[in-house]
């Protein structure tokens, strides 16, 4: 277990793609947050002024900013990094060599899961550090009413972490199935846009097909997007403010319980599918 983690660390930390991706991620969020900081913490999107990123609201705000938030960006960056790393194990044929050198297929699979967890932790820590650094400095000390981290924030963080693992596991499945970095990334984005978004939208155009489209809400990426919606957790404070935002769904249509159950089931199903694929195919 420890050895597997050490191996994944050697491979990841010495790879330029890892640092470049993290750099790009920070390059996106640092200016955004510094700008918000300069304005006393408020974030504007489409010329609409939103709540301040000051803690504790900042925890939720940075998870739902109409695509410009940390959750949405992580759903872009993390799968790409997972596809690159896991796809390349097959391109380099190191998947073969690792087994030849003595890993069992189970251990090889476990190593990939460890890698996904590691990436999830990285993005989780980035989120914590970014939001905490800027959010803490912006706290209005004259009117501290809340704790810096409330119970609902912890729930949101948990949901964010599950989302990170889930999207990572989905990317892992594409990586193992396609055995190629480029194909894995292509498949992932084809799936997440065409299958999960465009297809149900087309179905909704026709009245008779609308009920079928609703089933698409239960597909993994949709579930992982739903699970991090802050409106689910911080109902009083956030939903009112988020309602101002055009298109933001402050009142989600799926119950939080359903979303959590679906998400946890997907964690199991996605890992199980990857495991079976690895077990059954020639390397």
């Amino acid at each position: 277990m420890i050895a597997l983690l050490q191996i994944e660390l050697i491979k990841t930390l010495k790879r330029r793609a890892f640092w470049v991706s993290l750099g790009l991620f920070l390059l996106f969020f640092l200016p955004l947050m510094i700008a918000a900081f300069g304005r006393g913490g408020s974030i504007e999107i489409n010329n609409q002024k939103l709540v301040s990123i000051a803690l504790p609201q900042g925890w939720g705000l940075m998870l739902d900013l109409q695509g410009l938030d940390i959750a949405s960006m992580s759903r872009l960056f993390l799968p790409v990094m997972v596809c690159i790393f896991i796809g390349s194990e097959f391109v380099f044929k190191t998947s073969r060599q690792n087994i030849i050198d003595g890993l069992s297929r189970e251990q090889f699979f476990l190593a990939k899961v460890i890698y996904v967890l590691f990436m999830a932790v990285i993005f989780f820590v980035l989120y914590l550090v970014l939001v905490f650094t800027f959010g803490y400095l912006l706290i209005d000390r004259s009117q501290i009413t809340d704790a810096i981290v409330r119970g609902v924030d912890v729930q949101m963080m948990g949901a964010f972490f599950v989302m990170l693992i889930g999207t990572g596991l989905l990317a892992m499945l594409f990586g193992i199935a396609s055995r190629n970095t480029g194909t894995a990334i292509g498949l992932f984005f084809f799936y997440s846009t065409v299958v999960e978004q465009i297809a149900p939208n087309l179905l909704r155009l026709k009245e008779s097909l609308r009920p079928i489209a609703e089933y698409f809400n239960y597909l993994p990426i949709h579930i992982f997007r739903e699970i991090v919606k802050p409106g689910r957790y911080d109902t009083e404070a956030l939903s009112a403010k988020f309602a101002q935002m055009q298109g933001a769904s402050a009142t989600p249509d799926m119950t939080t319980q359903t979303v959590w159950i679906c998400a946890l089931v997907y964690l199991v199903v996605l890992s199980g599918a990857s495991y079976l694929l690895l077990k059954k195919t020639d390397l």
Partner: protein
Amino acid sequence: MAIIEVFNLTKVYTNPLTRKQKRAVDGISFSVEQGQIFGFLGPNGSGKTTTIGMLLDIINRTDGEIKLFGETNLNAARKRIGATLETPNFYPYLSGYDNLKIVAKIKGIGEERVQEILGIVKLSSRQKDAFKAYSLGMKQRLSLASAMLSDPDIIILDEPANGLDPEGIREIREIIKGLGRQGKTVFLSSHLLDEVEQTCTHVAVIKDGKLVKQGSVAELTSRNIARLQADDMDLLRTVLRSYGGVLSNETRDGAVFAALGEGTLSDLNRYLASQGVYVSHLSEARQSLEEVFLELTS
């Protein structure tokens, strides 16, 4: 003691789209004793890599049984084996040293050994360079180093001399012979027949997924071959064909080479004389492994 045992091993590849099937390995059985240097020979596409892949559990077998160290649990056995398959497979952006460090972690051995083995394959001076910056020969050496890293009991090499210069081939030969002297078991596939003849103690020949021959190198190359010349070569060939003790014959360099079954040269001579053929030359000819190979596989 048989250290590698293979029984009725079979691999059928199925094309996922056309469902067309290809029997790459077709019910082969063989065993390798401890301390043998076992050459696994066969033309391109005959199933060598597929067989080795199954030994290492990289390729799932369709049928058959494999025992390594007398055990069917290949996961446990693989830790005691060092192997390469087809091409050197390493992380291109990592240095040679880091790549071996990963292998050491998988094998559960200390990092000190990495330095030592890099010296043995003469890569110490380039150990900090990225694998992708290595020449083909250096990649092969790193591959060999990773196979020998844990000082394993069995070393399995798929065409280890591929891409090496004569000097490199000689070094590999010395390394393999050295392993043999230490009592290690080496299983290697190769196309370089004179290399195999010089290094291996035993060979098996595979063709179209089937084993066509196996035995010690001495056995295979010391087949009873007679080199004959006579005034009337046509008559000689005709009479040879009528003799039950001759398995095959071919004409080369102005002489007829006849492969004999059980009989001796005197038996053959007596028969020829009785048929009115008096030879001007009759001698025993040793066959090189290459000749045996070509005869078996063409």
